[in-house]
Structure formats: structure tokens, C-alpha cells
């Protein structure tokens, strides 16, 4: 949807208020929460300190994935070096034992890091529903210097007129009706 003018939609999925200042979005999110809204989100050009609490999103669970992937990489590296060097085709190198763990530590370490890093990034994109072709862009400035607060029509407190008024009262520069979020 373009920022100029509001097209008319038959299906309304929510309301997006656009703010121009960082402190406004923080205040707005807190007030909207106080008013009893629960299904809402903010769009900001950069991570705004304190907004996660204000919107009510929890701490990311991705570290657990990192840990599991790192452990997998560690086990895989141990298995790979052991199986290839001591089982599949054991070769005596410099009289060292076939299963010479200290010499394999660098390989195991690098694979741990590699698995943990790639899995964390992959799971981040999955968790955010990315990559997404042509995501709905309500206002092009939301990735530059403006801040958006979106309230979903699925919210039990959502009411077309009232929500619009509530957002406008918080000092929004513009309130858009959004068909897709």
C-alpha cells in the first residue's frame, strides 16, 4: 500500500499508526497495552530499546537452537574424525594412536562453531517467516526514520472507529487501515 491516500479494502486486517519520534512509539505501545489491547506489534527502522517489553514480546528462544546445533556439530566432528581415522581406513601417522583426540580438537571445534552459527541464522529466518516475496509495506519510511504501531483486527478490543481514534490521540502522524500484515 502506498503512503499517499488510503485505498478502500473490503477485508480489514488491522490498523497501523505511523509515528515520527522514537519516544512516541514507546509511549504509544505502553498506552495501547494499558488500554487492554493484546494483539499488536511495532515496526521500527532499528531495534528500539525497551520496545520489546512495551509490545510484550518475550525473549528470543533462538539460543536453545544454537546450543543444540553446536552440540550436534561437536558430536558430528567427533564422529567424523574418529570414524575416518580409526575405523574406515586407519593409517598410522607419526606413531600416534588411531584415535588421537587432541589432534582432532581443532576440527571438532570448527564444526561446532559452523553448525551453531548457520543453524542460528537459518532458524532466525524461519522464525521471522523470511524470505518473504513482496512483504506488505505500509509506509516506506518505516525502514528509515518513522515508527509504526500495528493493531490487528483479531484483537478482541479492536473496533474500527475507536481504535483509529485511540491511535490518533497518541499523536500518530497518520493512521492507515491495513489489509495485509
Amino acid at each position, binding site marked *: 500500500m502506498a503512503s499517499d491516500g488510503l485505498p478502500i479494502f473490503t477485508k480489514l486486517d488491522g490498523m497501523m499508526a505511523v509515528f515520527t519520534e522514537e519516544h512516541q512509539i514507546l509511549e504509544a505501545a505502553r498506552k495501547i497495552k494499558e488500554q487492554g489491547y493484546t494483539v499488536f506489534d511495532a515496526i521500527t527502522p532499528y531495534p528500539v530499546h525497551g520496545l520489546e517489553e512495551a509490545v510484550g514480546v518475550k525473549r528470543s528462544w533462538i539460543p536453545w537452537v544454537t546450543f543444540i546445533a553446536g552440540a550436534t556439530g561437536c558430536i558430528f566432528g567427533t564422529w*567424523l574424525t574418529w570414524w575416518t581415522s580409526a575405523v574406515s581406513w586407519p593409517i598410522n601417522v607419526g606413531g600416534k594412536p588411531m584415535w588421537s583426540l587432541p589432534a582432532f580438537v581443532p576440527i571438532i571445534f570448527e564444526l561446532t562453531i559452523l553448525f551453531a552459527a548457520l543453524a542460528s541464522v537459518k532458524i532466525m529466518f524461519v522464525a521471522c517467516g523470511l524470505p518473504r516475496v513482496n512483504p506488505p509495506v505500509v509506509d516506506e519510511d518505516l525502514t528509515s526514520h518513522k515508527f509504526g504501531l500495528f493493531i490487528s483486527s483479531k484483537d478482541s478490543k479492536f473496533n474500527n472507529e475507536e481504535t483509529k481514534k485511540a491511535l490518533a490521540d497518541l499523536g500518530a502522524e497518520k493512521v492507515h487501515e491495513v489489509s495485509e500484515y
Partner: protein
Amino acid sequence: MSLLEKPLIKGDKSPKDVTEDIAHLVEAKPHLKWLWMVLSAKSMLLFYMVVVGCIVGIGMGLMGVNHPVGWGTDIVTFVFWVGIGHAGTLISAVLYLFRQKWRTSIARSAEAMTVFAVMTAGIFPIIHTGRPWLAFWLFPYPNQRGPLWVNFRSPLLWDVFAISTYATVSIVFWYVGLVPDFATLRDRAKKDGRKIAHGVFGALSLGWRGATAHWRHYEMVYLILAALSTPLVLSVHSIVSFDFAVAQLPGWHTTIFPPYFVAGAIFSGFAMVVTLMTLIRIAVPKFKDYVTLDHMELMNKIIMTTGMLVGYAYASEFFIAWYSGSKYEGYAFINRAFGPYWWSYWTMITCNVVIPQLFWFKSLRRNIPVMFVISIFVNIGMWFERYVITVTSLHRDFLPANWGLFDMTFYDFGALIGSFGMFFTLFLMYIQFVPAISIAEVKPVLGTGKEGGH
């Protein structure tokens, strides 16, 4: 006075100004100065391709390596470029973990430098194998020769894993940082109705929008990548040093090598960041607002610190060579300083230990031409450090019957000089086509040093 009390970004900019400034660098037509720089870098790249083509096509005999110096400038230049890359990770990951806000405006370029330096470095061991078309043998894939596996006990194979992991994680880290900025460029292109740019940046941004529910994952992953890159970068140069330290050669077989190599890597990498930043500040004057003299001064302080660490390592090597009582070790070091390669040793000492001492003076730390010259000296010195380590240890080992000399040929020089062509071509392309300062990361630090800022 601490830097935190001063604004990090000059010119009292609003978030909108930041978007305009940085996006403009990508959106505007290339500057004539940039075009000339690219043309010269590309000519060097073409020269590089011819030189490497000759070495690969005709054979390793074109280079100086021979008995007893079987590791020549391919290895020297490889270690040099990998080391350069490490400062990028230090700035982007380690300074991030220490919450150093000043890193934001140089992190992107430093990371780009890492990626390109590692790419440049990676080519050299492959040339050095002599038969680069068989380089895939370095990976443990199921094959029809047994399967015959790689030797996991060899430091050279550790290197393969370390460098490839490092390259992969650095590229991913860099790209994750770029995603929100590509989204900014995409939305600007949409606003202005530039269809091709919208398509390209749309694809590159992967559909990023900046929802708070997404930022929470994003910030966490950024932190995780920083936390993973920090031990990774230390491991990479430690493993590079194992290539030498695990061998039994006098001058190589020392336990000081891992920390000594890591300090040297950071030292040379920061020097390269200073070289690049002084050049960018000339080519793109807008950068001066973001990469201020304060940033440059801080980097110069790190150069001086790591330079003294490296100097300490040089001294400690000498002391231990004497204190150990090993006559081979003792001779290796006397031979370094006073043997046939004395000139390389004293070039190293002058460039790495003596010249950076000028940074004790604040006026010199904050003087752009001075720091540019010093950073070049440091880069020369650090190339010679690897030359000293590699060549002087190999050319005279235990048996005098095994002694010999090493000379660089035209192809040794050609590959070294040409590799700068590759590096600078990539870096100049990056400066023009990718937002060279993190748009999303700079905005939160705008308030630093201002009234009521945090």
C-alpha cells in the same frame, strides 16, 4: 576525556539524515574518482590473473620455492591476508560484546575487509598445492579411492577447516547485518519508483520489515554470531600458527606462536582498516561525519598496543632461544637477525615495533597523513614478519648440508602485488554497491554524547 562523552556521529544528524547520507552513496551514480580507482585496481587484478594463470599452467617452478625453502611467498602472503581479516572480526564481534558503541560506523567496512581478505588469502594455499584443480581432495568426502580420508592429524587440514569455517561465518555475519539496510534501500526504491533497484534490494533484503517480533530474534542472533565469532577468530590464527608451531623446525616449534600470531593479526588488520578508512575519507567525504578523528585515534591506540604485544613476542622468542639452551633454536634466532636475511628481520622490527611508537603523541595519533603512512609501514612490516618466520627458519635447519638460500622471482612479486588488485577491486565494488555504513546500527547511537542521550 572519554570518547563516550562526545557525539559519535558528527553533524547533529537525525535518523532521516543517516538514511539519506548512506543510501545516497549506493543510489548515486559512481563518482569519477571511484571509477579511476576501480580501473587501476582491476588492471592489477588482470595482471594477477595472468601471473596466477602462468603459475598454474606452467608450474610451481616459476616461483622461488625449492629445496630447502619449500614454503615461499604463497604461504607468507596467505598468512598476511588472513591476518588482515582478523581486525574486521575483532571490530564487528569482540567490540560488540564489549558494547563499544564507536564500532558501529566502521563495523560494516571492517567486516567487508575481513570477507575480501579471507577470499584473497584462500587462493594462495591452493596455488601452493601446485595442482589446484585437485584442491577438493582437502575435504573429507566419500570417494572411490578406498575411501581414502584426509589426515585429520595434520595442521594443514585444521587450517582448511578453520579458514573455510571462518569465511562462511564471516560472510553470514556480514549478510545478517546487511539485511535491514537492504530493506531500507528497497523501500526507498519503491518510493521513488525505481523498479530494478526495488527488485534487487527486495530479493537481497529477503522481505525484512523490522517488526518488533522479528527484531528480538535478530538482535539475539547478532549477539550469538558475535559470541561465536570471537572464539572463532582466536582459533583461526592459532591454527594458522600451528602450521608452523607443530613442526619441529627451530624458530617454529614454540608455544608462544598462537597468541603471538593473533596479536600480529589484529595489529596488521587494524593497520589495514586505517589505510582503507583514510582512503575512503578522501574518496567519499561524507564518511568524515561517521568515521571521525576520534574513531581513527582509537584504532591507532589499538595499533600501538598490539604493536607492543608483537614487540614483546619478538623479544620473548629471543630470550627463550637463549634460555632454553637449545643450540639449534639459539642459532635460528642469531641467524634471523644477523644472517643472510638480516634486512628482512630489521625491516620487520623497524616497521612493527619502532615506527608505531610515534602514536604516543596525541597530535600524531590524530594526524591523517601520518597515520596513513604508519599504517602502510605496519602492513609492510607484518608481511616481512611472516617472511622472516617462514624463510629464515627453513633456509638453515639442523644440518648445514641442508642449508640454502631463497630468492623471490618475478612471479612471487607478481602474485603478491596482484593480490592487492583483487582485494581492492572487491572492496571498491562493495563501497559503491552496498551500504558501507550500517544504517540500522548507527541510528541508535545518534543520541550518544548529546543532552539527554543515553
